[in-house]
C-alpha cells in the first residue's frame, strides 16, 4: 500500500507539470480559438531566459544575493514574455484576424520555429542547470501511517503548491474581474464582444501574456527538474493527450487531465509494465488519448459541439 501511494503521488506530482503546460494551451484556445503550437517553444524561451539571467546578472552587476538574483531574473523573464505577447499579437494575429482556425494554427507553427531559434541564438543552446534554491531532498510523508512512509521529492511538493496557487489565482481572475469577463466573452463570440466595446487586440495581448507567464512557471519547474535544454520545447507533445483527455476549452479539464495522465503513466509502468516488458510510460498517454478520441472526443470537460441542421 505504501508503495502504491508512493507511485501514485509521484505520478500526480509529474501530472501537475503536464497540467501547467496544457493550461497555456487552453487559455489561448479559449480566448482566440487558436491551437497555439508555439506554447512549448514559449516554455523553452522563458526557461532559457531565466537560467541565463541567473548566470549573467551577478557577472554584469556584481550582485551576490542569490535570492535577489532569482527574483530579478524572473521579473526580466516575465517582462520578456509580455514583449513576446505584444509582438505576436502585432505581427501575427492582427494581420490574420477573421481567418480560419487552421491558418492561425499554421502561423503558430511558424512562431514556434522562430521562438525556438531566436531563444537559442540569444541565450545559447547548451544544457543549463537551473537552481532556484528550492531543496531537492527526498522526504518521507505519512511515516506514522505506513512502515517506511511515502518517499517524495520536496521540490515536487513545492512546484505542485506553486502550480496550485497559479491555477486558483487564474480561475478567480477569470471569474470575478472585468477583464476576466471580457476574456470569457471574447472566447464565446468575437463579434458580440466587439459590439459591447471589448477591444479584441488588447484581450489577445493579455491572453498571450498570461500564457507566457504560465510558460515561465512551467519552464522554471521543468528546467529545475530536467535542466534547461531544447527537449523542453517537445513538452508540448505531452500536453496534447492531456488536452484531449480534459477537453480543449476547460481549465479544470487541463488540470485533471494532467493529473490522470501523470498518475496513469507511472502506475501502469510500475504495475502493468513488467507483464509486457516495460516501456509503457512512453506511450501510455497517447494510448489513453486515442481511446478518448474514439469514445468521448470532446474530452471529460470540453463543450460538446452540437450542430443543428
Amino acid at each position, binding site marked *: 500500500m505504501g508503495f502504491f501511494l508512493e507511485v501514485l503521488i509521484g505520478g500526480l506530482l509529474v501530472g501537475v507539470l503536464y497540467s501547467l503546460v496544457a493550461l497555456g494551451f487552453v487559455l489561448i484556445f479559449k480566448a482566440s480559438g487558436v491551437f497555439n503550437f508555439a506554447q512549448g517553444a514559449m516554455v523553452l524561451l522563458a526557461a532559457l531566459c531565466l537560467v541565463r539571467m541567473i548566470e549573467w546578472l551577478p557577472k554584469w552587476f556584481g550582485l551576490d544575493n542569490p535570492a535577489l538574483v532569482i527574483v530579478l531574473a524572473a521579473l526580466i523573464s516575465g517582462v520578456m514574455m509580455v514583449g513576446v505577447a505584444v509582438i505576436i499579437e502585432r505581427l501575427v494575429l492582427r494581420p490574420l484576424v477573421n481567418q480560419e482556425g487552421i491558418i492561425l494554427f499554421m502561423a503558430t507553427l511558424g512562431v514556434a520555429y522562430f521562438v525556438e531559434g531566436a531563444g537559442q541564438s540569444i541565450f545559447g543552446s547548451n544544457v543549463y542547470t537551473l537552481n532556484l534554491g528550492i531543496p531537492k531532498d527526498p522526504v518521507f510523508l505519512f511515516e506514522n501511517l505506513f512502515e517506511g512512509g511515502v518517499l517524495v521529492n520536496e521540490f515536487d511538493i513545492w512546484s505542485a503548491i506553486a502550480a496550485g496557487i497559479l491555477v486558483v489565482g487564474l480561475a478567480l481572475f477569470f471569474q470575478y474581474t*472585468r477583464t476576466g469577463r471580457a476574456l470569457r*466573452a471574447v472566447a464565446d463570440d468575437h463579434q*458580440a*464582444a466587439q*459590439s*459591447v*466595446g*471589448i477591444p479584441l487586440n488588447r484581450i489577445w495581448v493579455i491572453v498571450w501574456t498570461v500564457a507566457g507567464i504560465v510558460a515561465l512557471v512551467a519552464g522554471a519547474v521543468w528546467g529545475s527538474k530536467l535542466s534547461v535544454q531544447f527537449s523542453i520545447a517537445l513538452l508540448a507533445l505531452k500536453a496534447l493527450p492531456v488536452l484531449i483527455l480534459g477537453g480543449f476549452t476547460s481549465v479544470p479539464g487541463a488540470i485533471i487531465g494532467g493529473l490522470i495522465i501523470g498518475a496513469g503513466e507511472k502506475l501502469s509502468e510500475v504495475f502493468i509494465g513488467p507483464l509486457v516488458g516495460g516501456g509503457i510510460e512512453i506511450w501510455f498517454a497517447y494510448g489513453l488519448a486515442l481511446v478518448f478520441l474514439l469514445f468521448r472526443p470532446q474530452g471529460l470537460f470540453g463543450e460538446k459541439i452540437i450542430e443543428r441542421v
Partner: protein
Amino acid sequence: MAAPVKTVGDVLLKVENISLSFGAVKAITDVSFEIREHEILAIIGPNGAGKSSMLNCINGFYHPQEGAVTYRGLKRHDVDPHEAASRGIARTFQNIALFKGMTTLDNIMTGRNLKMKRGLFWQALWAGPAIAEEIEHRRKVEDIIDFLEIQSVRKVPVGRLPYGLQKRVELGRALAAEPTLLLLDEPMAGMNLEEKQDMCRFILDVNDEFGTTICLIEHDMGVVMDISDRVVVLDYGRKIADGAPDVVRKDQAVIDAYLGVQH
C-alpha cells in the same frame, strides 16, 4: 427619469451615399438617410435587401467601399467597432450573439465594460477600488434586469434559456452600455404574439424613459407601423422609400417590392 414629451431632435446619425459590395455582389448601392435624435426609425425590406449590412456599416463591422457615416458630428469612412461602442452605439444581432456559457448577469455586465475604468492592477489584486466599482455597476445591471423582468433567470447560463428570453438578455446587454443610439436587428424574429408585445413595450419604454434613439430592422409590418416614427425601405440594396409609416405603406414602389414585381 421623468418622461419628456416626445420631440424628435437634430440629426444624430447621417448615412451618406454608402455603397458596399462583397466581390461581385452588391449589397448596398448608394444609400443615404438620417436618424434623428429620439426617434424610432425602422429599416424594412425583403430578404437580402441589405438591411443587416446597413447596421454593420453603422457600427463598423463592415467598411463600405464608398460613402461615409457621420455620427454626432464626426464623419467616418471606416468606423471602428470599438470606437462606435465607446461613442454610444449599442446593438443586438439577428441570430442572437450572446456569450452562451455565461450567466444572464455576466452577459449584461459585459455591456458595462466600457464604463468600468479600474486597471488590470486593481482587478488582479481584487482590491478596494475594483470591488467598489463592481458593486456600483452591478446595481445598474440589476436595474436593467428589473426593467426587462428577467430576475428569475439572473444566474442561469444564457445558453439554457428559451429563445424569447435570450433576445431579452441581448437587449439588456445593449442597454447596459447606456447607449445614445440602439441598433436592433430583428428584435422580434421568431417570437410569439405575447413575446412580441412585451418586446414592443420594452422598446417604447427605452425610447420614452431614457430618450434613446432606436434604429431597428423588423419584418412584422404590424409592429413596424405601430412603433416607428419613420420608415426607410430598402430593396436590392437601394433605398426606395423614406417617410412616415402611413406614407410609406401607400407608396407604389414599396408595394411592388413586397408583392414582387419583375425587375
